[in-house]
C-alpha cells in the first residue's frame, strides 16, 4: 500500500510539472504581454521597455519559469503584475463562488444521477426509462451557457424569483448567498447530471447481469431491492473514477457559468487573467487546479481500497 501511495505521489508530482510547463509555454504563445494589456492602445511612442524590465518580463523564459517554480515550491503563488494582488489571497477570495458551484453541483448531480441512472437501469426495457434517456440526451446536447441564459431570463427576469446574476458571500448573508447560486448550480448540474446518469445506467446494467444479483433475488429480494442493496455499491467502483473526472468537468463548467451569472469565482479569474496576460496568475491557478484534480484522482486510487475489499486485501499483500 505504501509503495503504491509513493508511486502515485511521484506520478502526481511529475504530471503537475509537465502540466505547468505546458501552461507556461502556451501562455507565452499569446500575442502581447501584461504591458500591452495595461497600456492598451495608448502606449506612448516612447520606449516602454523599462516597464517590462521592472516586471521581470525581459528575463529569459527559462529563468522566469524557474523563478515561478521556485516560488510555488515555497508555497508562494506570486502576485499579479498590474494590480500587484497576491494570487493566493485573490484565489481564496474567489474560492467562495467556485466552491459553492462545484460542491453544489456535486450535491445536486451525484444523488440525482444515481437515482435516475438506477431507475433507468432497473426499467431498462420499459418505456419509462425512455424519459430518462430523453432528459440525458437533452442535458448533454444543450450548451451550459445557453441553459444559464434561459434560467436567468425565466426565473430571474420573468418570474423574478431569483437574482439574474451576482454573488453574495455566504458569510455575509447565507440565505441570499444560496439564492444567488441556485440558478448557476442548476445550469451547471444539468449537463453533468446527464453525463453521469448515463454512466450510472451503464454501470448498473453491468451489475444487474452479475450472478450475485440473481442470488439476491433468489433470497427474496425484488429486482429493485437487489439493484439498490447489492447493485449500487458494486456499481460505485467504476463510478468513483468517473466522478473524479466529472469533477474536472464541473470546474470547466463553472468557468462558463461564472461568466453567465457574473459570479466572481476562480473560473472568471482565469479568463480575465488570460485576457490580461497575467501569466503568473494563470500559471499558479492552473497549477493549483491541476493539483486538486490530480490529488482527487490519487484519493480515488486509495478510495478503491475502502470500497472494494478485494483490492484492499491485494494491496496489503503487496507490501
Amino acid at each position: 500500500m505504501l509503495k503504491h501511495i509513493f508511486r502515485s505521489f511521484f506520478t502526481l508530482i511529475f504530471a503537475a510539472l509537465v502540466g505547468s510547463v505546458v501552461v507556461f509555454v502556451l501562455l507565452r504563445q499569446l500575442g502581447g504581454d501584461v504591458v500591452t494589456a495595461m497600456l492598451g492602445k495608448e502606449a506612448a511612442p516612447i520606449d516602454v521597455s523599462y516597464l517590462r524590465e521592472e516586471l521581470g518580463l525581459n528575463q529569459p523564459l527559462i529563468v522566469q519559469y524557474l523563478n515561478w517554480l521556485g516560488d510555488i515550491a515555497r508555497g508562494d503563488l506570486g502576485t499579479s503584475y498590474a494590480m500587484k494582488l497576491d494570487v493566493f489571497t485573490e484565489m481564496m477570495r474567489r474560492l467562495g463562488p467556485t466552491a459553492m458551484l462545484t460542491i453544489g453541483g456535486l450535491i445536486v448531480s451525484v444523488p440525482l444521477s444515481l437515482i435516475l441512472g438506477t431507475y433507468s437501469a432497473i426499467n431498462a426495457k420499459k418505456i419509462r426509462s425512455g424519459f430518462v434517456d430523453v432528459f440525458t440526451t437533452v442535458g448533454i446536447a444543450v450548451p451550459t451557457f445557453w441553459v444559464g441564459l434561459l434560467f436567468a431570463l425565466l426565473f430571474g427576469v420573468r418570474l423574478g424569483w431569483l437574482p439574474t446574476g451576482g454573488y453574495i458571500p455566504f458569510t455575509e448573508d447565507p440565505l441570499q448567498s444560496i439564492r444567488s447560486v441556485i440558478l448557476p448550480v442548476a445550469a451547471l448540474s444539468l449537463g453533468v447530471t446527464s453525463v453521469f446518469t448515463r454512466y450510472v445506467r451503464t454501470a448498473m446494467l453491468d451489475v444487474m447481469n452479475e450472478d450475485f444479483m440473481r442470488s439476491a433475488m433468489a433470497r427474496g429480494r425484488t429486482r429493485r431491492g437487489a439493484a439498490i442493496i447489492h447493485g449500487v455499491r458494486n456499481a460505485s467502483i467504476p463510478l468513483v473514477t468517473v466522478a473524479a473526472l466529472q469533477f474536472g468537468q464541473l470546474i470547466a463548467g463553472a468557468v462558463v457559468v461564472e461568466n453567465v451569472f457574473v459570479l466572481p469565482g476562480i473560473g472568471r479569474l482565469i479568463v480575465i487573467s488570460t485576457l490580461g496576460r497575467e501569466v503568473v496568475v494563470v500559471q499558479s491557478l492552473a497549477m493549483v487546479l491541476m493539483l486538486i484534480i490530480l490529488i482527487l484522482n490519487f484519493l480515488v486510487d486509495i478510495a478503491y481500497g475502502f470500497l472494494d475489499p478485494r483490492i484492499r486485501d491485494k494491496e496489503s499483500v503487496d507490501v
Partner: protein
Amino acid sequence: MKAIQIARKSGRRRGFAFAIVAALAVAACGSSDDASETVEDSTTEETTAPSEEAKSTTLIVTLAQEPASWDYYTVGANALRVPTFYNVSESIVELRPDGTIVPMLAESWEMSADGLVYTFKIRSGVKFHDGTDMDSADVVYSMKINAKSPNSKLSAPHAYVASVTAPDASTVVITLKQPSSTYLKNLGMSAGYVVPENWLDSPDLTLKVMGTGPFVFSDYKADTTLTLTRFEDYWGAKPYFEVIDFRFIDDETAALNGLLAGEYDVVSKVLAEGIERVESFTTDSKFKVQFESANENSFMWLSVKEKAFKDIRVRQAIAHAINREEALAVYDNYADVACLLVIPDAEPYNSDYCPYPYDPEKSKALLKEAGYENLEIDFPFVTVASHPFTMEVLTQQLTAVGIKVNSRGLDLNTWIAETWTGGVYGMGEVRDSADILQWGCKGGRNPLGNPKPGLCIKEFEDQLAKADAFINYDEHLKAMNTLVKTFADLAWVNSIAAVKVPQIMKANVTGIPTVSINNAFDLRTATWGN
C-alpha cells in the same frame, strides 16, 4: 433597404443565443403583451414602492469593462477613467461638453500674449481623499510625472512643455517651447490629472484612484464591485448620491436582464450583443435610454508596410468601396456617418467633406488602373464588442469590388501587439478617441506612427505643426479643418462612423450627461427625477 438586411443578418449572428432565449421566453408567456405585463409586475415587486426608491441615496451602475489595475499613470484603458474621472479624479481645468474650458482645481489662469506661458491660480481649501491639502507642489509634481507617463493620453499633450514651476503655494507656471492651441483643453483631460505628491511611490497606486473629486474610491473587489462614497470635504457642490455602487458585468445580456429585474439602476454602456435589445427599452416607459456621444470614431486603416498601399489609387479604391451608411447597421444605426477623423464630432472644424464617397465602380476602375485587380488583404480584427460585425460588413464591401479579404479574429492584446503597435498585416479597424493632432509622424500615434519609421507625409506634417501652434482660435479652427480634410484625402485612415453609446437606466434617473469627456461616466449631477 439593403442596410436593414445586413443589420438583420449580422444581428442574427451576434444574437443567436439570445434570439433563441427570447423566442422561448415569448413562447413560454403565450404572447408578448403578457410578457411585458409580467415584467412590470416583477419590477414593482422588486422596488416595493417607487417613493421609497426615490429616497435611496445609492445608485447601482453596471460597468462593462474593468481595468487591469487602478494605476492611472500606466493603464490606458477607458475602463479606468469611466468610473473615476470627474467622480474621483479631477484635472487642473474642466472641459465642458460644449467645448468651453472652465475652472476646476485652478481657480483661474492667464496665458501670455505669445501663447507660451500659462499661469494658474490654484484653488485653496481643496483636500485629497487621504485628507491632505492640495497645493501647487502637488500640481507641479503631477504635471511633471504626467509628461513622462508611458500612457500617451497623459504624456503626449506635454510634449512641448519647457518647464513647470511653483512660485508660491497657490501659483503654478507652465512654460511651453511653442504655442499650443489645444494644450489647455488637454489639461481638462488625462494630461491634467492631479494626484498628491509622490503618489507614484505609494503601494496603493495600483489598488485605488486618489484624487480630489466629489466621490472617494472607497472599496474595490476585483471582478465584483467598485464602491464610491460621497466625499464630505469636497470643495465644490456635493453630489446627491452618497454611494455609487458600480458592478462589473461584462456580459451585456446579464446586465440588461438585471436591469429588467430591478437589480441595477443604470447600465452604463451597451456596446455589443445588447445593441439589438436597446429598442425594446426605448419603448418601455419604466426605462430611459440616452445616447452618449462617445467621442469615438470607428475607422479602418491600411498598413504602412504594404507595398500595394503605397499607390494612392489602391487606397482610394478601398476608400470608395466603403459604404458607411450600410456600416451603421453594426450599431443598429446608433451612430453617424463620419468621413473625417474629428473627435469629438461636435468640434467646430468638422464638416460634411467626404472625398471618397461609396462608389464600387470607381473602386474597381482604380484597382484596375493601378494593376491590383487581384488584391488580397490580411485583416486581423478584435473578437469582442462591435468589431466582429464591422469586420463582416467591411469584408463584404471589399469583396464586392473584387478584393480578397482574409480576416482573422484575435483577442484584444494579441491584436494590439500584432496590429496596432506593429506586426505584419494588411488593414485594421478600431474605435478610438484620439484627435487628429496625435497622428503625426514624429512621436506619432499608433498605428501609423509605429512601427518606426512611421508614415511621414510632408504635406500633412507641415499642416499638423502649424495647426496647433495658432494662438488665434479662428485661425486654429481653419487650419484644423484643412488638416482633417488632408488626412482624409490621403486615405490611409478611413473614418467610418461617429459612434453613440446607448445608456439605459430606470426612467427616474436624471442628470447623467450625454457627452462624455475623457470617457468619464460623470455622476456629479446624477439624482432621482420626478
